[in-house]
């Protein structure tokens, strides 16, 4: 989780990712950010996130992203 938060903070230092629950819906993360996150996360955790999982619900909060990462790790 900390690795993830680090990636996120790097991208948007001004956002408090631990409390935000609507990152995509409120437009804090745009499509460029999401691709960057996916790339970084794939790199860091050595997983592949399928394109079909890139939906707002999976990126609206740090927790959601972490859940996605764990699911992908399980499937590996």
């Amino acid at each position, binding site marked *: 989780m900390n690795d993830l938060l680090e990636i996120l903070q790097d991208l948007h230092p001004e956002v408090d990712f631990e409390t935000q629950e609507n990152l995509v819906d409120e*437009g804090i993360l745009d*499509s460029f950010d*999401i*691709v960057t996150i996916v*790339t970084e996360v*794939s790199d860091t955790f050595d997983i592949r996130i*399928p*394109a079909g999982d890139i939906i707002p619900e999976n990126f609206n909060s740090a927790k959601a992203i972490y859940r996605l990462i764990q699911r992908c790790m399980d499937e590996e």
Partner: protein
Amino acid sequence: MLFASYEFIGFLILTFLVYYLIPRRWQWGFLLLAGYIFYALADPRYLLFILFTSASIYGCGRWLAARKAAFRERFAREKEGLDRERKKAWKAAEGKAQKRILLLGLLSNLGILAVTKYTNFAIVNVNAIRTAFGGSALPMVDLLVPMGISFYTFQSIGYLLDVYWDKISAEKNPLKFALFVSFFPQLVQGPISRFGDLSKTLCIPHAPSAEHIVPGLERILWGYFKKLVIADRMLVAVKAIIADPDTYGGAFAFAGMLFYALELYADFTGGIDITIGTAQVLGIEVTENFRRPYFSKGIKEYWKRWHITMGTWFTDYIFYPMSVSGGMQKLNKWGRKHLGDRIGKRLPVYLCSFAVWFTTGIWHGASWNFIVWGLGNFVVIMISQELEPLYDRFHKRFAVEGRTPWKIFQVVRTVLLMSLLRMFDCYRDVPLTFRMMGSMFTSFHIRDLALSSLTGLGLGAADYGILLAGTILLTLVSLAGRKGSVRARIMTFPVAAQCAVWFGLFLLVILFGYYGIGYESSQFIYNQF
């Protein structure tokens, strides 16, 4: 059948009546029939295309679903005895097989789209090269371009990808799926619906209720107001300006640019209002396609608010899959190693973005104008992305952020920029467009914008008065819409006042609509996309 025709209005009334008079379990079946009639009235041959798309995508969807189910079952049964590597290999093999089904569906349908829409464009370009090297030109082919083929093809492809990604389960009933492809209100110009959204209300029984019928009709009326009173009237002057670029340069080109921005907005959002309103009368919910786009403060925001369903389609089905693909991940790693972190990280994203905007451009029309227009958007977005640090410094220095004058400046800037790019829609070819853009700066004479010279464009002073009043009304309604649905607020008025509002709007459409003999009814701009 154009939306702005008596035939369409007659078709609507008949459809509404039959829809609510037949037993409710037949309603969706009737809609399918209505869609095919609507389509056949345009050209019976179109039916072959839409039937092929419906059948092939349905088939691939079922096939995928069956394969997925079979695999899950076998995998659950047999995975115990396998080690990690074997499981992975098995999964990979299965993934490949599924991908083949997906590709079969995608390529066959995209192939039809490409052949019907882009063959002649390809021939033009090949000819340009051949003649440059002294060769002979190939003849053009006369191909049928089915109405709305881009819309229903994209909608169907989105469905198949969603099934492939397990976002939705495949529709079992082929007729219900066929209805999703051929739902008539959105057949002509979108929005591009997602199966997961539209299917929620598409095939369920709907009781006639004033709660959705009345707002639906109101929305249709508002759509006709935009379309008939504003768009079709404005189009006259737009056409006059672009038809004669030698005469109408400079300030005229500038006026034409703004006129076209208004015309396009009123035409397209009006058409979508008619579509969504029609669906609403039928009790069906269609995704919104616009959110006051001309109030955007930046081009990225604009593209989140203009033709939304198209933007999200490109993002979800092209941009994301492409950016997270293995190839792009590799490129990312390679870039970081050889070009440094900063550039390496961006390279794949920008490459995908380029692809998206190229496709967006060519999707709008088979010509270089649209490609350049799409790439123009790409360039502007990239520049604003790259300049973001600079903006940040600017904002730190000058505390303008969030202040009203600054917001207005941002909005005006965005509208002007988008309108400028839209000039590629209008003029014959790309060089001419650049020339006209240039003329706005080199030969701008303010006197050309006087009413006396604008009335030479086929519209009278009264027409400009109507346009001005209409635009003000449009803006006010748009502003009021920020605080929630305007129609819902009107609903709280006393009955007599409500009647007055809607009958007043009806009168405006009837009296000031630019339709009928002497007025040439224009096609919806997005008809053949």
